[in-house]
């Protein structure tokens, strides 16, 4: 999703989820969020809070920056 200050937040949640053999519903239950949130996160339509981003990173045993990548918009 495009941030107001310019730039993009991408994520590799779908790849990590598939690597674990989980479906969206299972991941949603594990993270305590709705399935719709997982769908929106994976499609890049919604940026998670820092709290949820940490939760996701901890769940996959990764660092936040391994999952979420911020790309500055080129001027």
């Amino acid at each position: 999703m495009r941030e107001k200050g310019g730039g993009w937040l991408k994520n590799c949640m779908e790849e990590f989820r598939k690597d674990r053999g989980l479906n969206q519903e299972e991941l949603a239950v594990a993270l305590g969020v709705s399935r719709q949130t997982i769908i929106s996160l994976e499609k890049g339509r919604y940026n998670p809070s820092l709290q949820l981003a940490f939760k996701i990173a901890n769940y996959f045993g990764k660092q936040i920056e391994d999952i979420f990548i911020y790309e500055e918009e080129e001027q």
Partner: protein
Amino acid sequence: MMCKGNDKGFFTVFGILGSIGIVFGFMMKYNLPESAHDAMMASGFLTGIGTALTGIFLIRKVQEKFFPKKVEKDTIEMNDERNLSIKRTASSIAWLTSIIWLAVAAFVLLLMEQRMGAYLAVGGVYVSGIAFIIAMKVLEKKM
């Protein structure tokens, strides 16, 4: 965080407010003279709202007892950060719409020479504006 947290307490408040509404509604109805039509209507309104709130509370209690899985899912949906964010944005839009509606209503009422109604509508605009400023100041200090 706003809207987030103990939804059991939230529904209990519904139950308490609903019961109070029903009791006051009936008390008003049986203590008012037959000629007080508007107050009678208000008592019916109060009883209706009270019944609706109590109904929601009772349905929730039944769900908690017989469908705990559904309640758990509902709680996740209710506390889900994306849903909360959507609700907040929708609330802001609804608030702005109400303000515009009240301002238009005040203008129309004034044209219809309904001063009391117009004052109430303008009062609504001011009250929500003041509530907005107070909430903003409180939140600024908290964050």
